[in-house]
């Protein structure tokens, strides 16, 4: 089965390729660029003229809700949504029910993802048993089961000694530790950024220090233990600055940001819009600027969706009683592309944050399209404008503040291991 992607602008950040060329795929892998390989018989051709061809997107932070919360979403429903959004690899946190602290859960997730066949799903194992922050999870066993890293999900490890030992233990096996930085005492029972809007609305505020205090602690522990750390989704300029300084010192730390943090601020909560209830919270216009600058300067290497699909009822309560999170797979690329359209970033540079950089963070041989590479491909029109409609969303959750908004950039085709898993039909 040979596939030819003809005439697209191939942007492959890892190989520093950005040119209009043809891409040949055979047996699930890239076999040639530009000229057809000898004796090639093309069985399927995709016309990519006027479109961008890049490695399939890798989303380091997406919750698929299975196992345990299938009323919100399933691996099948969400991987289908991912395919429609050009995402070919989803990295899921361990905060499922049961928690990913045994091999059995890892295997279950992998099996469901294979059955669905729409996207690859990589799993982060638990850092501590049941994410309780007390005893270490069996990280070596989780790694053997295929986990690409470890994390405590959205539950911060309060006990510093446990965190230190967990990092030390993870370093033994070269496991990357994914960190959600939130001081538990500064964030408890609070739902939005502590600032002028929270003061006006009378909503308990999560101060910036909830993030920076935790980042400071974890940076020092990362330095002491030597483990590789990844901050999943920073929300404040000050945290970005702290990470930048640590990197200058030579610390092997990486950082991510969720795409919605590059677009929304605390102002968007001012009408009690529960779709804007997220964790970490939306912060100030200054923070939004700092986060965008962080992506541009390379301090933030990965843009993620922070996808959290919900059933309708989860958001149908007064703001403070709603669950946090946005259904975000289907807006990941267009929201990120804004940094190319408006933010002055090169397309290749921007796409690196969605392909080669995240691949490197979880050490998978993906996110590139050189000869021999796995043919996970995203083909998109960077300029087309479209409106996000609830009925057209494939995710089981349509909880997003971007409903009805005009987005720029649309995925036309997605290939997973050379197989077409999505073609946009208007």
């Amino acid at each position: 089965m040979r596939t030819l992607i003809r005439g697209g602008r191939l942007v492959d950040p890892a190989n520093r390729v950005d040119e209009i060329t043809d891409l040949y795929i055979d047996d699930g892998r890239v076999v040639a660029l530009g000229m057809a390989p000898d004796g090639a018989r093309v069985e399927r051709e995709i016309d990519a003229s006027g479109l961008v061809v890049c490695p399939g997107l890798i989303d380091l932070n997406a919750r698929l809700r299975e196992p345990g919360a299938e009323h919100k979403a399933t691996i099948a429903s969400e991987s289908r949504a991912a395919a429609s959004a050009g995402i070919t690899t989803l990295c899921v946190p361990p905060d499922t029910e049961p928690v990913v602290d045994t091999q059995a859960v890892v295997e279950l997730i992998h099996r469901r993802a294979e059955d669905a066949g729409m996207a690859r799903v990589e799993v982060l194992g638990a850092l501590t048993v049941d994410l309780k922050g007390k005893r270490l999870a069996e990280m070596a066993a989780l790694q053997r089961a295929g986990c690409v890293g470890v994390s405590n999900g959205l539950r911060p490890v309060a006990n510093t000694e446990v965190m230190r030992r967990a990092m030390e233990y993870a370093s033994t096996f070269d496991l990357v530790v994914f960190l959600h930085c939130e001081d538990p005492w500064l964030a408890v029972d609070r739902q939005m950024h502590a600032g002028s809007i929270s003061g006006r609305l009378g909503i308990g505020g999560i101060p910036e220090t909830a993030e920076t205090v935790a980042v400071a602690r974890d940076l020092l522990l990362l330095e002491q233990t030597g483990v590789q750390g990844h901050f999943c989704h920073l929300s404040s300029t000050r945290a970005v600055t702290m990470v930048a300084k640590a990197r200058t010192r030579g610390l092997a730390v990486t950082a991510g940001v969720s795409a919605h943090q590059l677009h929304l601020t605390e102002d968007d909560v001012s009408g009690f819009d529960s779709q804007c209830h997220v964790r970490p919270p939306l912060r100030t216009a200054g923070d939004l600027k700092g986060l965008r600058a962080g992506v541009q300067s390379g301090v933030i290497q990965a843009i993620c969706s922070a996808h959290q699909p919900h059933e309708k009822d989860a958001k149908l309560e007064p703001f403070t009683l709603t669950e946090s999170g946005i259904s975000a797979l289907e807006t990941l690329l267009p929201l990120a592309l804004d940094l190319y359209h408006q933010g002055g970033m090169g397309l290749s540079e921007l796409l690196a944050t969605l392909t080669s950089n995240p691949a490197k963070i979880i050490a998978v041989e993906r996110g590139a399209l050189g000869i021999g590479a796995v043919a996970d491909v995203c083909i998109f029109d960077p300029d087309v404008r479209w409106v996000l409609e609830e009925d057209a969303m494939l995710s089981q959750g349509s909880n997003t503040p971007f409903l009805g908004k005009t987005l720029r950039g649309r995925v036309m085709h997605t290939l997973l291991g050379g197989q077409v898993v999505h073609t946009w039909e208007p």
Partner: protein
Amino acid sequence: MARSQFCQLDESGRLRHFLTTEGLSRETLTDILDTAESFAAVGKRAIKKVPLLRGKTIVNLFFEPSTRTLTTFELAAKRLSADVMNINLRRSATVKGESLLDTLHTLEAMHCDMFVIRHASSGAAHFIARNVAPHISVMNGGDGRHAHPSQALIDVFTIRRHKPDFTKLRVAIVGDIAHSRVARSQISTLRTLGVKEVRVVAPRTLLPPVPEALGAKVYFSLEEGLRDVDVVMMLRLQQERIQGPLLPSLHEYQACYGLTQKRLALAKADAIVMHPGPLNRGVEIDSEVADGPQSVILQQVSHGIAIRMAVMSMILGRRDSAEVSN
């Protein structure tokens, strides 16, 4: 910001819901005060009823315990000749399977005209206004720490009776600003009405994260904050504040922020003292002050009914005139 502000006014700028004092014009606020003035006399008559809302049904939907507020809302509705139903739903009642929306839709089906909502969560009144059937109006009887608009109007009504020219007034609001829905509504109301200076007086732990954003001048010292003010508005200190890390003790709070006769002497000689109740005597306010000649606390209570009558009649009366013109 305007993008997501829920509109409590209809197309012609009249009150459709009453959720917050924020965004209401000076004209609308003055209109409510003037209407309340006309209702204040009703309570003094032998027959304390007017037939304005005959045939209307008002439901007091209280998700938080309250006696005083509930009573005045009930009396206000009754004096307007509306049918009233009081429903007390402590949080636990809605936890068991039935969501807040289910409860509302059940009541909607009974053809009510207005819900008066009190709820422990900020934004609850907005949420309900957004989700109820279009024929129902929502009146906020206090939502979390967000707003208590009718209380704020009671307070300015009381001030106006003593000091009719707002532009000359300095007002100090003293106490737990951070957790007070009353304070938030008071500040916005006083500012819209053109008060010369609004001050908030509290320790840093009882102020919101960016206190200046409220549009009031911040004082940490009660003595300085009281100097030359015309109105002192005290807030109730919830006992739970001293269980967390916000305050060391009631005793220390009283020592720093309790209103004593001696401290009150720093304000203007004709300054009035207010408190939305219930009082913690000997904590935020001494009995000597609360029961003294400058206190107008009991007047506030009696004005509660007139203000609520005014808002109810303006909202439900508006709909009638709209129906007639259709």
